[in-house]
């Protein structure tokens, strides 16, 4: 096939940052789908418009999710991307790979698809970009053979993800990797066979730094935290000071609760006031360790703006101990999903449902107690509902 002219995309090969155009061309060298993708993208650059039709439903046997159907609106010009579906492959938790496993993935994809991928998608999957309808099932068969399975899509549990946590990070208060993997394995059915009102995302971060952005991007966020005093190694604090860290200005003054005092020699923390923001610990990882009792805060409801505006997840359990087999956690997830499943309208995320029905209804349904940690501040409007049992019945 004659090389396509791509004068616009060529301009994106220039510059120091690695170029996706280079990768596309590399793939196009040996793969006609990639070649036509390049051509169609060039056309989009010229037309300033996408050239994909609204997705159709395609999939593998026994699953309802994991494949995103896609068709070109110019199959006349780009026949090899007439159908160009992506496969969402569940990444190994924490995105850890041994190269042999990664190479196996590449081999499968060279055999069945365009040879192009996203490492990774924003939900966390390894995205295999573009194959034909025929290839979906064989590709899946080869993937499972290679030890991989599909991730979630549609109205299903989406591929859970976790920060690197105990794998590398000194601040992990919970085993983010193990929790995520455990959940992923426990809920395979919910991931592969969409039965919910809409998507449901779970993410696990080991500490309040929230390196998987769970609070913004998950319906159900697990964020590690601690109780007990921050342990201070005063010697190391002094070492940081000696090395040029301005402890008063950079640490104490930026502590959001102003609960730290530094007299040039000793650092004091009023732990009762500390809100565990991590700032001081972030700056002095050698000198400060989180308190000894570890667990997680559970927050729910986060999502992007469609339909009624974005939501950040909010606290529903201030502190939960998390140790295998994570029964309390999984039990809560189930109770929440059951309730959502029963009352949620189609395309209504968990957060939106709670917004519609009210936290009090939610809390009662899933059996959680109301605690002040759930709110920035109590309500300002007087539109308070009382439960029937609060009201004295008239004796008539």
């Amino acid at each position, binding site marked *: 096939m004659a090389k396509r002219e791509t004068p*616009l*995309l060529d*301009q*994106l090969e220039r510059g120091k940052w*690695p170029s*996706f155009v280079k*990768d*596309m061309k590399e*793939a196009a060298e040996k793969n006609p789908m*990639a070649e036509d993708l390049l051509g169609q993208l060039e056309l*989009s*650059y010229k037309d*300033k418009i*996408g050239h994909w039709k*609204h*997705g159709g439903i395609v999939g593998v046997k026994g699953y309802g999710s994991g494949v*995103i159907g*896609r068709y070109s609106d110019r199959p006349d010009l780009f026949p090899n991307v007439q159908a160009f579906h992506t496969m969402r492959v569940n990444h*190994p938790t924490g995105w*850890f*790979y*041994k*190269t042999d*496993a990664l190479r196996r*993935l*590449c081999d499968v994809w*060279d055999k069945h698809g365009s*040879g192009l991928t996203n490492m990774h998608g*924003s939900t*966390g999957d390894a995205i295999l*970009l573009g194959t034909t309808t025929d290839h979906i*099932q064989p590709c899946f*068969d080869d993937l*499972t*053979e290679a030890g991989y*399975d599909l991730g979630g899509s549609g109205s299903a549990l989406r591929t859970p*993800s976790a920060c*690197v946590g105990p794998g*590398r*990070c*000194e601040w992990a208060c919970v085993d983010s990797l193990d929790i995520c*993997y455990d959940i992923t394995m426990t809920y*395979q*059915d919910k991931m592969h066979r969409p039965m919910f009102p809409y998507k449901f995302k779970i993410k696990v971060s080991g500490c*309040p730094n*929230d*390196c998987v*952005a769970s*609070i913004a991007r998950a319906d159900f966020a697990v964020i590690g935290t601690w109780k007990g005093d921050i342990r201070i190694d005063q010697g190391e604090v002094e070492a940081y000071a000696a090395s040029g860290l301005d402890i008063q200005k950079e640490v104490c003054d930026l502590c*959001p609760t102003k609960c730290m005092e530094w007299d040039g020699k000793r650092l004091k923390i009023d732990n009762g006031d500390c809100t565990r923001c*991590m*700032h001081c610990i972030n700056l002095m*990882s050698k000198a400060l360790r989180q308190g000894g009792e570890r667990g997680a805060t559970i927050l729910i409801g986060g999502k992007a*703006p*469609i*339909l*009624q505006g974005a939501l*950040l997840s909010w606290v529903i359990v201030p502190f939960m101990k998390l140790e295998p087999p994570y029964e309390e956690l999984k039990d809560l997830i189930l109770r929440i999903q059951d309730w959502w499943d029963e009352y949620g*309208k189609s*395309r209504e995320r968990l957060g939106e449902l709670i917004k519609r029905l009210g936290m009090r209804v939610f809390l009662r349904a899933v059996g959680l107690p109301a605690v002040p940690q759930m709110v920035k501040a109590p309500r300002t409007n007087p539109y308070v509902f009382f439960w029937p049992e609060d009201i004295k019945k008239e004796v008539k």
Partner: protein
Amino acid sequence: MAKTDIGPPDYKTMLPPVIARNYGKWRYHEIPQPGVLVHTADSGEKLYSVRAGSPRLVSTDHIREICAIAEKYCDGYLRFTSRHNIEFLLADKDKVAPLLAELESKGYPVGGTGHAISNVVHTQGWVHCHTPATDASGPVKALMDEIYDYFTTMKLPNHVRIALACCLNMCGAVHCSDIAILGIHRTVPKVDNTRVPNVCEIPSTVASCPTGAIRGDMKNKTVTVNDEKCMYCGNCYTVCPAMPLADPDNDGISIWVGGKVSNARSAPSFSKLAIPFLPNNPPRWPEVVDAVKNIIEVYASHARKHERVGEWIERVGWERFFSLTGIPFTDKHIDDFDMATESFHSSTLFKWS
């Protein structure tokens, strides 16, 4: 017959031995130079992580090249980050310098750590999606070329997290980014009355509209859109393919600032509108690149150490943000969705500029 529900490979089989040995027992970390993290365990053992930038849209050959490097220096162990960078994981300190040299020679940017700009979380754009108002990989590449130095150094007040999403669905989760680049449509969907009756469900199409702009026309089995109430979110199109709204002349990009995710110091917060519209100008989106760069530079020269973009703006005030960046404030910056009044300034506590 394929196996089903086997789940992902067990991550434990993917961990380098130094991690397996010190799992959950890390003590502290240091960043001796941009892109290099050194984690020391209670045992005293050290793990070296070398972070390299990636375009995310990568070919299998590119992945194989990464594998080859990892095999050479890291016993075949690597990982990707939550922002799509590559991390080479080494137990052997002596291999760090040679690895860095090879990465440099092969054109891999090393950095993204500490007070840097890391990789741009982004989405599909014209490469694969059906609702984009702009491309994803293209603007990201053009931008990263221009702000490359902020990736390979750590000279900003704090890290700056940039994300791009090509439509209001916000797959790039740009809604909580220091700087967000968001594709937007600006024209009302064109209802194809011949197709709606066949491909769309009227009630769910009507329900899909956040502003209630869509009405069912039961007689003709189609829908009508009230132009004045439509803000081009595209949600109807997601539900009903016969209502496309892409428009080469009017699609483009908006810029948002001041969001964050971490709980460090201040609470997580949403990004706020900085620039309502910039044109799609492929292949290098100069207006977008300039606008983002300008914001970064004003932030870099005005924020205090450790202040995130949003923390800086909150301290100096939005009046000041607009005057310092020279970005015009318009009526589009003022919220008019359902909780708009929460964002109105209900006090006299403002600055003159």
